[in-house]
């Protein structure tokens, strides 16, 4: 097992823990984006370029957008009440 893959797996364990330990949803979204970036680097190291394509766009553009927009509607609804 090469050093690159072992190093990326170790960093992934730490960023995954970071996503779970961040209780505020808005900060958790940024932790999820970092997790997605490390995940796509790991997929590239495991010789899977197609999977890395999908994960980069989804993990750093699509999912943070959905989460931020949903949180903004939730906050507006809470203030309206």
């Amino acid at each position, binding site marked *: 097992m090469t050093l690159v893959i072992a190093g990326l797996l170790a960093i992934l364990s730490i960023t995954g823990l970071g996503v779970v330990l961040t209780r505020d949803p808005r900060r958790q979204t940024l932790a999820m984006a970092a997790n997605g970036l490390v995940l796509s680097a790991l997929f590239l190291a495991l010789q899977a370029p197609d999977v890395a394509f999908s994960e980069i766009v989804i993990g750093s553009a699509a999912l943070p957008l959905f989460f931020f927009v*949903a949180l903004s509607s939730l906050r507006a609804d809470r203030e309206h009440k």
Partner: protein
Amino acid sequence: MSIFPYLAAAWLFLIGLYGVVTSRDYVYLIGCLTVIQSATYVLLLAVGYKLGAGAPIFADHPPGTPAVDPVVQALVLTDIVVGAAVTALLLSLALQLQKHRGTIDPDELKPTQD
């Protein structure tokens, strides 16, 4: 330590599950679900890996060279895209929950008594 990738996948699964169990907010719970999903991706791709092999794309070298397994990659890449759509569906369910019940705290959302 050749089961290290599988242990990393199991670790991600367990801490994601811990986040789901002790969540105080439904949007936080949906974020922990994405961690659980990424654990399955790591496990699948680690099963199909061959040391010293290249990607299963043969555009610039002949098809005899050693390459990793393409079947698990096909599974994972459709899974990532569809998983994002299902996450968006869960987020819109949380939005509707906020509109109708006024809170998204799982502990306060007991089934209605009427």
